[in-house]
């Protein structure tokens, strides 16, 4: 462990995250603008697919900017990027299961608790 730490110091001195402050200020501004956009989606009462697609697009743009620049992911090595960014895709499986389960419960509730015809 001792040698690992010493070696990390020399290795890290090269890989240190040093970026001009303008990068952060730009991303900060972009995040502000994107947040205003997503708030306006609600303010102007967009509905249906337009609303959902706009919400999701702004959400992923914001998330991407935060992870890529603020968390320095674009400057990290690909081994780390893949190890962190790919596993959450597994949540899509849970998402699918949840959607099926939710729809099924909705239908059964309609059958058993709905108005008698």
């Amino acid at each position, binding site marked *: 462990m001792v040698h690992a730490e010493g070696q990390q110091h020399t290795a*890290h001195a090269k890989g240190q995250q040093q970026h001009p402050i303008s990068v*952060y200020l730009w991303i900060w501004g972009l995040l502000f603008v994107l*947040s205003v956009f997503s708030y306006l989606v*609600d303010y102007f009462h967009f509905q249906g697919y337009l609303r959902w697609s706009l919400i*999701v697009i702004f959400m992923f743009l914001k998330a991407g900017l935060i992870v890529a620049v603020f*968390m320095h992911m674009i400057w990290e090595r690909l081994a780390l990027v893949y190890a962190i960014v790919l596993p959450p895709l597994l949540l899509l499986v849970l*998402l699918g299961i*949840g959607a099926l389960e939710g729809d099924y*419960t909705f239908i059964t509730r309609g059958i058993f608790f709905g108005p008698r015809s």
Partner: protein
Amino acid sequence: MTQPVRTGTGEALPLPEGLPGIVADWSSDQRAFKNVSWGKAMMWIFLLSDTFIFGSFLISYMTVRASTTVPWPNVSEVFALTFFGESIPLILIAIMTFILISSSGTMAMAVKYGYERNKKMSAILLLVTAFFGATFVGMQAFEWSKLIADGVRPWGNPMGAAQFGSSFFMITGFHGFHVSVGVVFLIIVAIKVLRGDLDREAPGFLTGRKGNYEMVEVMGLYWHFVDLVWVFIFAFFYLW
């Protein structure tokens, strides 16, 4: 970043017995993440596990919302505030979003100044970040008390589907807890920076590891993650 990194596998490793031996063996000679310290790699892996926690929360929220036959409360109206006799939808949540994003910006700059050994700027920006975080938690407390006063409970509410309350308190509560913990640690890191612990490589009070400015960056990773989670909560819970 393209320079080769010494792997150090040629060196003889100490082989302690017992419990320390387990730790030494597992942590000894394999390094997958070459250019980051293990402190940073472990923070990333912790954040990955946290992603699954919040992902599960949001997916179960989707499931209960899809399964209810009672209409979902109109979130835009529930979180509206009245200013000067005019009701503005979702305004509190929008302000909270801007505050959290601003705190992310100050945090990123605190990391930068930390690496430049600019103790004063780094500590100031860390404290500003902590202040924004505390403001966020305060507004959340206001929001909670307003909703509780309106009769929202985890088991039901006057506006519509009962699942609204349980999802709301669980998701925002867990996120608010993360923010609160972050504020505490931001203050601790700010004190360490201000005292010069990171310049002197003074051992930390908890782990005894030598201080260095990468700690500020690792703290920043956590803080940006909290902001990241809010982006998803804002989109799925408040806007959907």
